[in-house]
């Protein structure tokens, strides 16, 4: 409980400090809007030319795109400490100060940064979701809303876990490793579309190892009433837990890596 209060306090402080420069904040938020809007425009243009993708209609694709954007950018907004700042904390030796304080490393890193500019990207994701619901005529029920919330929260956890992999590499090698982007940004780009359209190796990767399919897409497909796999409805409530599993496994490795942490300090 105490940790959560601490997190909320630091978020408040960081937000206040970021909003001290309103023009810069607005400009950067606008840039983010254009960036994510561009991705959405690409999807609209693709649908303009091809109008559907296998069994998925335009509305379904907007919904998949939206749930991925919302989840990914929520992570980047509130997990900025892990998704953005960690490599520079290791390189500059700033992580040492974290080790001196009586709180967990991850807690402190998460409390160290927030990225409110992402709000515009989240807005684009929400717009895509609304468009998707309209076009596919989704009938919302309480159960579906619950499923949606569950999918997004475990999705955030999993993506945070994937960014922790980069942190682990970073502890060992000091440099940030570009290759890990394949799982995070690559996963995002690939899984904006339902995995069923990909050839087997990619399907296996995004179902069994980096389970975007289980955490986000299976629940989304049940909300659209076009199940991704031939599984009963209740399984959609269980599969997002795999996101938590991924997070905890990576977190264990992160803890181990922290024991090997050698300061770069000067």
């Amino acid at each position: 409980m105490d940790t959560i209060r601490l997190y909320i306090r630091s978020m408040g402080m960081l937000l206040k400090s970021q909003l001290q420069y309103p023009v810069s904040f607005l400009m950067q938020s606008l840039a983010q809007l254009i960036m994510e809007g561009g991705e959405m425009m690409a999807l609209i243009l693709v649908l303009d030319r091809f109008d559907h993708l296998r069994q998925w209609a335009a509305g379904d694709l907007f919904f998949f795109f939206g749930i991925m954007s919302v989840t990914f950018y929520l992570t980047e907004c509130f997990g900025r400490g892990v998704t953005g700042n960690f490599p520079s904390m290791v390189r500059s030796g700033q992580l040492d100060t974290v080790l001196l304080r009586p709180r967990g490393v991850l807690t402190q890193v998460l409390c160290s940064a927030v990225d409110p500019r992402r709000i515009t990207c989240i807005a684009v994701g929400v717009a895509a979701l609304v468009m998707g619901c309209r076009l596919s005529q989704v009938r919302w029920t309480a159960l579906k809303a619950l499923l949606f919330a569950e999918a997004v929260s475990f999705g955030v956890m999993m993506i945070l876990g994937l960014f922790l992999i980069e942190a682990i590499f970073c502890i060992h090698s000091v440099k940030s490793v570009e290759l890990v982007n394949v799982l995070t940004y690559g996963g995002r780009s690939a899984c904006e579309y339902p995995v069923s359209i990909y050839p087997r190796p990619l399907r296996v990767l995004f179902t069994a190892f980096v389970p975007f399919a289980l955490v986000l897409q299976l629940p989304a497909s049940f909300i659209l009433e076009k199940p991704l796999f031939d599984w009963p409805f209740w399984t959609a409530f269980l599969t997002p837990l795999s996101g938590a599993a991924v997070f905890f496994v990576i977190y264990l490795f992160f803890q181990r890596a922290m024991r090997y942490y050698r300061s770069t300090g000067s």
Partner: protein
Amino acid sequence: MKAYLSVFRLRRRLETQYRGAALGGILCQVFFGLVLIALYRALYAGKPQPMPFSHVATYVWLQQAFFRMLLASDADLMDKIRTGGIAYDLCRPVSLYGFYYARITAQKLVGSLMRAVPMLLFAACLPAGWGIAPPASAGALLWSLLALVLGLACVSALENITMAFTMRTLDFRGVQAMLNMLMMTFSGNILPLTLFPDSWQRVITLLPYAQLLDAPIRLYTGEYGAGDALKVLGIQAGWTALLALAGVLLWRRNQKRIIVQGG
């Protein structure tokens, strides 16, 4: 001229030092390329288009291979502008515009060649419909190489303009992200320009962004025939000249009103 050549050579040496980073970059781009081709294959299966699929696959690979040519902002220069280190460059007995032009061109050329050669070799080994197709003809290859050189000249001129704007605003991230997004969208990196609505294509192929990679790729696949080649090269050369002129003027004005940061 000798001074600019040596700037180019120094930059080339620096860029070839980071082979590990290049390898990571290559693997990333290969992954993105495969995902995109898988996606377009699925789309084509539902509704085939008049353009053969091998052209789309070729387009994707060439875009991925030369990705570095589009997006390589000079982090050093950004730092110099922010910290005031640019004052040292002002002391050099060369034109500032030429100095940075040589630097940026070297960075883009070497950075993209280092990545493009292994990636294209890999893409050539993939089965048909996944990999890169051979050029439409020997002539097409020659024209596309020429167009690629002009594309490089054009993108360097474009980046110099971005830098000039950066110098004015100090907080470069907003402006830069926007210009980058324009570049990524209208150069065909996010979605091949050949898949844009046909009515849009008539306009966007004339924009400077289409001159960087889209024009060389279309010459390579034969979508622009030998008859169009001279026209295409003309448009490229025209944009390069125009952008370089605008860049020189902007830099000159900046130099007059520069206020160096820091002490």
